[in-house]
């Protein structure tokens, strides 16, 4: 299982950087993202950067990076006629699916961690003056934990959509629309709740400790991740994919 997963991971990580901008353009685009979010913004913000709201970009960066490549996972293989050959290999269904999810997560979350490391180095280089500047444990838990769980969420949802879509473009459209519906849907649902409920929720939030809220948030995302990944695994059937 691990060897099979490793083979898929190897292939995907060779292909993913070339997906949007060709052989050299992909890594170059990533370097620009790292330079902007890992060097330029921390330099502009100053010593407080590591515990500021700006760290939210580290959480959202993998979502953006994964969204750009995950539609290709199965729809792209189908479009370029490589899927049937892949399915005719001895790789198990699980290793093909998990390998693609793992590769997308490695790409997005890996970039996010690189960006985080780079921003810490930048802030210390410019503002440290011999003292180590680092984010708080809470910020670290949110940034590292949540960016991982969001990466898995985006990769699993993307793979699920890509399994069903007949073209990459169709998969991208479904993902974009789905993403907007979920984000704006949550916003409008919360706004449309009765005033008393909204006040109760904000009071409850304020009275609960920050650590508890973080753990609760991470747990909710973990459950969602597992549910989406499980439904993608149920959807993955060799014989169905071959006929489609």
């Amino acid at each position, binding site marked *: 299982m691990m060897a099979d997963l*490793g083979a898929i991971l190897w*292939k995907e990580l*060779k292909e993913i950087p070339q*997906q949007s901008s060709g052989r050299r353009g992909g890594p170059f685009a990533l370097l620009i993202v790292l330079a902007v979010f890992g060097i330029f913004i921390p330099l502009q913000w100053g010593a407080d950067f590591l515990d500021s709201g700006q760290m939210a970009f580290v959480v959202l960066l993998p979502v953006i990076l994964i969204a750009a490549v995950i539609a290709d996972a199965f729809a792209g293989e189908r479009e370029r*006629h*490589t899927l049937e*050959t892949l399915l*005719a*290999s001895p790789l198990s269904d699980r290793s093909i699916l998990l390998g693609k999810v793992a590769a997308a997560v490695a790409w997005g979350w890996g970039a996010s961690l690189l960006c985080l490391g780079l921003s810490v180095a930048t802030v210390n280089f410019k503002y440290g003056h011999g003292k180590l500047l680092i984010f708080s444990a809470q910020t670290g838990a949110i940034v590292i934990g949540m960016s991982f769980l969001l990466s898995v969420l985006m990769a699993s949802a993307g793979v699920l959509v890509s399994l069903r879509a007949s073209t990459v473009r169709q998969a991208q459209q479904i993902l974009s629309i789905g993403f907007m519906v979920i984000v704006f849907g949550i916003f409008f649902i919360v706004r449309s709740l009765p005033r008393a409920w909204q006040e109760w929720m904000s009071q409850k939030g304020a009275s609960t400790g920050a650590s508890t809220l973080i753990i609760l948030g991470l747990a909710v995302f973990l459950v969602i991740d597992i549910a989406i990944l499980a439904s993608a695994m149920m959807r993955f059937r060799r014989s169905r994919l071959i*006929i489609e």
Partner: protein
Amino acid sequence: MTGNGTNHLSIRTEGLTRDFGKVRALDGVTLEVPAGSIFGFLGPNGAGKTTTIRLLLGLLDPTSGSAQVLGFDTRTQGAEIRRKTGALLEHSGLYERLTAAQNLEFYARVWRMARADREARVKELLGHLGLWERRGEAVSAWSRGMKQKLAIARTMLHKPPLIFLDEPTAGLDPVAAAALREELAVLASREGVTVFLTTHNLAEAEKLCGRVGVIRQGKLVAVGSPDELRRREGGQKVEIIGRGFSEQLLAKLRQRAEVEQAQTMNGRLSLNLRDGMEIAPVISLVVSEGGEVEEVRRGKASLEDVFLTLMQEEKQ
């Protein structure tokens, strides 16, 4: 190494049937492919060739009947079959963004080849096919013939005892197709591999295959060596070059006991004579009916003649 089957057979099917909704794509195919042979599976488009390969690889389950590949049951041991076989399906299945070497490296990893083995094997196969110098190029820049060669190398990477090739020369120009056929024959013989080859190119089947099966609308209608099938067609083929071959003459020829089939093509009179029949009375008839005979060519039926006859039987 094989599963629990007989070692001298690579493939054995019994009443293999597959339906897609109300359409019967494969209808009771019973077939045996001996180990070490090149078996040609002939049929027109939509006859069921690709479905057969998918069933044999365990990618689809049969609606009824059974199949063993290398002794493994296709219903329950698909993964073992795929581990011990190689397949070039309808499309080359190459990753165009990757280089030739990376394409082979990926599948070598899939087949869990040790690092030293896979490096040596990639070099050996690419070298043999004349592609070693271009191993670092992205496959997208390659011609279709080169891609097909690389795809064939991929099928043999892990030295499987059996490979499936689904119309490997389709879409190639005649020169590239002939070169690929030659490479394939040499590789297959050198590697001692059993080849299950689907094609609708009859010349290809005749050159490459020790045995062929003909499939028509999902049914296997003939199996044997090309010679056996030609004998089955029987008689001899006669081509008369000249002028004045009227419809009236054709009608009279078709009434003769010697003549099995008579038709004109591009001004030439083409006849199939029954076994042991003399040509002289037929030529006399042609001349007496006003035909001018310049040349008479005699020969055996080709595999193409057999194939066309089998396809015409269906229409009749």
